[in-house]
C-alpha cells in the first residue's frame, strides 16, 4: 500500500467524537405527518391560534410540492416523510426555575459536548462569555444569561417563548425573509418547526457577548426542524454562533432548519456556524441530512450581514446562506469551509442578491474533498437593474485529497446593471507534495503538515470566526482530515 493510501485509510478510520447518545426521558409525537401532527405540535407548545393557522397554511402548501431531487449535485434515496417523528422533547414536569431542576443527564450531555449551561463567568474575562440557547431534539432546554441581556433590552430566548411573549415581533418578522412558499423544506419547517432561538437587539445596542445556539439531535427516528430569527434594529450589533452534533446511528435523520436575519439601518449581524452533525460511517451508512434554508436581508441602509460556516458533518449538506442587499451601501459576506470525507456529499454556497445602490458582497469558499465524497460549491450573484455600483468578489477554491472524490463549482452570475463590477475566481488543486516535504524537512510529520497546510488554506475563513469557535474549528478540521494527503 502506498503511503498516500495508508494515510487516506487513516482518515477514514477517524471516529466521530460526538457520537454518543444520552438516555434522557423523552416525550415524542407518533411517527408520521398529517394535519393532526401539526396540531399536536402547536398544542404541545400551547400556541396561539394565529400560529397554528400559519403552520396549517404552510403544511397545505407543502402538500402541493414535490420533493426537490434533481438540481443539486447530491444523491440519496427518497425520504419517507411518514417515517419521521416530528416532535421529541426531553420530559419535564414543570417550568424550570433554575439549572438545578434540569435533568442531570441532560446537563452531562451538554458538558460532554463542551457546552456550559452554567452562567459562571470565565476567568479569562467577560468578553469571552457566551450566552447559550441549548436545543435538544425539538425543544430549547435552557437559555443562559437571559437576565443579563434583558438589562440592555436584548431579547434572547427560545422561539416558543418568543411566540408567547413577543407575538408582535414574531408576526412582523417570521417568514419575512424565508416565506413558507420559498422551497420544499422551508414549507415543511414552517409547518412542523418545534423550537429554535429568537433574538432581538434593540436600537443602538451592541450585544456585549456572543449569542449562541447549540443544536443536538438525540432521539432516534426524529427530524429536527428548528427556526432561528434574529432581528437587529437600527445601529445594533450581534455576533451569533451555532453549533450542531448528533449521535451515531445507522439511520439517516433529517434536519431541516430555517434561519432568518433582518438588519435595519446601520445594523450588523455576524452569524457563524460550526456544523458537525454525525456524517455517517465510512460506508456512508447513517448520518444527518442537513437541508437548511438560511437567509438574511439587509433591510436598512449601511447594514451588514455575514455568514461564516465550517461544515464538517452531515451525510448530506444542502444549504445556501444568502443575503438580500436591499438597503443602500449594505454589505453581505459569505465565508465557508466545507469538508467532505468518506461518502459525504455537500452542495453548499450562497446567494448574494444586490438590490440597493453601492452594495458590496464577498464570497470566499474553500472546499476540501477526501475519500469517496463529493463537494460542490453552488452560488448565485445577482445584480438587479438599478443596483448601481454594486461590487462582488468571489473566490472558490477546491482541494482534492485522493482520486476517488469530486470537487465541483457551479456559480451563477446574473448582471443587469452596467455599473456593476463582479469578479469570480475558482481553482482546484491538491496539497503539493513539495509543501509536505518542506514541512517534513523541518521536523513536522506528514499528518501535522497536512493539518497545517489545510488550516492555512482555510485561513481567510477561519479568521472570520470568533476566537473560541476558531480554535474549535481548527481542531475539527484536523480531526476530519487526520493524515490525509493529496
Amino acid at each position, binding site marked *: 500500500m502506498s503511503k498516500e493510501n495508508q494515510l487516506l485509510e487513516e482518515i477514514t478510520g477517524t471516529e466521530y467524537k460526538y457520537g454518543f447518545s444520552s438516555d434522557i426521558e423523552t416525550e415524542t409525537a407518533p411517527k408520521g405527518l398529517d394535519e393532526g401532527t401539526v396540531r399536536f405540535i402547536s398544542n404541545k407548545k400551547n400556541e396561539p391560534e394565529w400560529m397554528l393557522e400559519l403552520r396549517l397554511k404552510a403544511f397545505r402548501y407543502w402538500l402541493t410540492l414535490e420533493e426537490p431531487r434533481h*438540481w443539486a449535485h447530491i444523491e440519496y434515496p427518497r425520504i419517507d416523510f411518514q417515517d419521521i417523528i416530528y416532535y421529541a422533547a426531553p420530559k419535564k414536569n414543570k417550568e424550570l426555575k433554575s439549572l438545578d431542576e434540569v435533568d442531570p443527564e441532560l446537563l452531562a450531555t451538554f458538558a460532554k459536548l463542551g457546552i456550559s449551561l452554567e452562567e459562571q463567568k470565565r476567568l479569562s474575562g467577560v468578553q469571552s462569555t457566551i450566552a447559550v440557547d441549548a436545543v435538544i431534539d425539538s425543544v430549547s432546554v435552557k437559555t443562559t444569561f437571559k437576565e443579563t441581556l434583558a438589562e440592555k433590552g436584548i431579547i434572547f430566548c427560545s422561539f416558543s417563548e418568543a411566540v408567547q411573549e413577543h407575538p408582535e415581533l414574531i408576526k412582523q418578522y417570521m417568514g419575512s425573509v424565508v416565506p413558507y412558499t420559498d422551497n420544499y423544506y422551508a414549507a415543511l419547517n414552517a409547518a412542523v418547526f418545534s423550537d429554535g432561538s429568537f433574538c432581538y437587539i434593540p436600537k443602538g445596542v451592541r450585544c456585549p457577548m456572543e449569542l449562541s445556539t447549540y443544536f443536538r439531535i438525540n432521539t432516534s427516528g426524529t427530524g429536527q426542524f428548528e427556526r432561528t430569527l434574529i432581528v437587529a434594529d437600527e445601529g445594533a450589533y450581534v455576533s451569533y454562533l451555532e453549533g450542531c452534533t448528533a449521535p451515531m446511528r445507522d439511520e439517516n435523520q433529517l434536519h431541516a432548519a430555517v434561519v432568518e436575519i433582518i438588519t435595519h439601518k446601520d445594523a450588523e449581524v455576524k452569524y457563524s456556524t460550526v456544523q458537525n452533525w454525525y456524517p455517517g460511517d465510512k460506508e456512508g451508512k447513517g448520518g444527518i441530512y442537513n437541508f437548511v434554508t438560511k437567509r438574511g436581508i439587509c433591510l436598512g441602509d449601511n447594514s451588514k450581514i455575514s455568514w461564516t460556516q465550517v461544515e464538517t458533518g452531515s451525510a448530506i449538506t444542502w444549504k445556501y446562506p444568502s443575503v438580500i442587499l436591499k438597503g443602500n451601501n449594505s454589505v453581505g459576506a459569505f465565508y465557508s469551509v466545507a469538508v467532505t470525507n468518506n461518502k459525504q456529499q455537500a452542495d453548499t454556497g450562497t446567494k448574494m442578491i444586490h438590490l440597493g445602490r453601492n452594495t458590496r458582497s464577498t464570497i470566499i469558499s474553500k472546499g476540501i474533498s477526501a475519500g469517496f465524497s463529493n463537494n460542490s460549491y453552488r452560488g448565485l450573484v445577482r445584480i438587479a*437593474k438599478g443596483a448601481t455600483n454594486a461590487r462582488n468578489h468571489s473566490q472558490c477554491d*477546491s482541494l*482534492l*485529497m*485522493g*482520486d*476517488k*472524490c*469530486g*470537487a*465541483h*463549482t*457551479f*456559480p*451563477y*452570475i*446574473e*448582471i*443587469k*446593471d*452596467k*455599473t*456593476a*463590477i*463582479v*469578479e*469570480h*475566481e*475558482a*481553482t*482546484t*488543486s*491538491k496539497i503539493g507534495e513539495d509543501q509536505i516535504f518542506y514541512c517534513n524537512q523541518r521536523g513536522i510529520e506528514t499528518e501535522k503538515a497536512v493539518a497545517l497546510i489545510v488550516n492555512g488554506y482555510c485561513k481567510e475563513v477561519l479568521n472570520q470566526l470568533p476566537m473560541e469557535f476558531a480554535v474549535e474549528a481548527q481542531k475539527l478540521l484536523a480531526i476530519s482530515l487526520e493524515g490525509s494527503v*493529496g
Partner: protein
Amino acid sequence: MNTSTTIAEKITPGAVLLPELDVLQTTLAGNEQIRFIRRKALKSFRLQGLPERKNEEYKYSPVAALFRTGRSFPASTHSLTRNDLTPFLVPGMDAFLITIIDGKLSRELSDELKGTPALQLHDLASLEETPSAVFQKHFGADALITADPFIALNTAAFRDVVFIQVPNNARIEKPIHILNIVTAEGAELVNPRILIQVGRNSAIQVIENFIAIGKAEQTLCNALTEIRVGSGSTMLFYKIQDHCKNLSLISTTQVYQDEQSHFDTHTVSLSGNWIRNNLTIVADAEQCETHLNGLFILNNHQHVDNHTLVDHRKPNCESNQLYRGILDDKSTGVFNGKIYVRPDAQKTNAYQSSKNMLLSDDAGMNTKPQLEIYADDVKCSHGSSTGQLDEDALFYLRARGIGADSARALLMFAFTRDVINTIRIEALRTQVEELIEKRLTH
C-alpha cells in the same frame, strides 16, 4: 399513435413541429441508413420535447418564443450566383469555397476539392453513389441525439450532409471556407449538417460563416457540425456570425479529439437576433490540446449564449477557454462553460476565462462557469468578471487629447484583443479586426 400524441401534447411548444416532421421525413433524400437515423432521431425528439424553463442548460436562453408557431422546412431552389457571394468572402484569402444553401450543398457554388487529391467533399447524393465506410462509422456517432433536443431535431430533419474528409498525413495549406447560407424569408427551420473527419497527422483550417440573405426575422437555423480530429492532427476552426442580422441560430459543434491532437476554435458573434452556440469537446486520448476562444459584440435586442463543455476523459490534456463580450442597448449575453474532468484524467490543465463589458443600463450578462472535477492531480481554474469600461483609462486617454468616442472605441478594441490576436489566418484576422472596428465606432 395515441401515445405519441400524448407525449406531443406534453411538449406544447415543440409539438407544433411534429406533424410537419412526420411529413418531411417521407420526402427527404437518403438511403435506408440515413432514413433510419432520421426516424430514430424523431422518436428521441418526441420524447425529449423542447427544453423547458426548468432545464438548467437553457435557463438563460428560453426557447419557447422560437416555437410559438409552426415552422416549415425549406425545399427551396435558389438563384444565387458566384457574384452574389463576393461580400461574404475574406479579402485576400485564397480558400476552397463550400457553399451550403438552406442546408443543402450547392455544388455549383462550391469549389472542386478534386484538384487536391487529399481532400474529399461529399453530400448525400455522392455518398449514395460511392458509399463511405468512414462516413457510416462516424456520422451521428459523437453528436448524440439523446444529449440535446436540438441535436435530435437536426438529425431528424437534415436535408443534406456535407462531409469533408481529410486523409492521413495531409497538411492542407489552403483554408476551407464554408458559407452556410439561409435564403428563407419566413418561419422556416433550416437544419444544415456537416461532418468533418480529419485523419492522422494532418492539418486543416476551416472557416464557417453564417449568412442570412433574406429578411429572416422569423427564421431559425439549427446547424450541427460534427468534427473528429485524428491523432497528431491539428485543426483550426473559425465560426463567424456576421452577415446574419435577424436570424435566430442554434449552432452546435461536437468535437472528438484523438491522441496528441490539437483543436483551436474561435466563435465570433457580431450579428444575429438570437444565437445559441453549443460547443462540446471530448478529449478522449492523452495529450490533447484545446483552445476555445469566443467574442461577441451585441446591441439592440441581440442575445448570444455561448455554451461550452470540455470533457477531459484521459490524462495529460490541456484546455483553455477565453471568452470576451461587449453588450450594448438591450442585448443579453450568456457564458455557460463547463470543465469536466473524469477520474482517469489526471494531470489535466484546464482554464477558463470569461470577461464581459456592459455599455448600457438595459444590457444584461449571465455567467455560469462550472468545474466538475473527479481527479485530484489536476490544475483547473476559472475566472470571470463583468464590469464597465475603465473610467480611469478613459480619462487618461482623453487627457492625452484623444476624443471620448475614439478613446472608448480604443479601449473596447483593446478588450477584444486577447481573442483576435489568436486568429492565425492573417487575412481573416484583418477582416475580423475591421468588422469589430466598424461595430465599435458606430
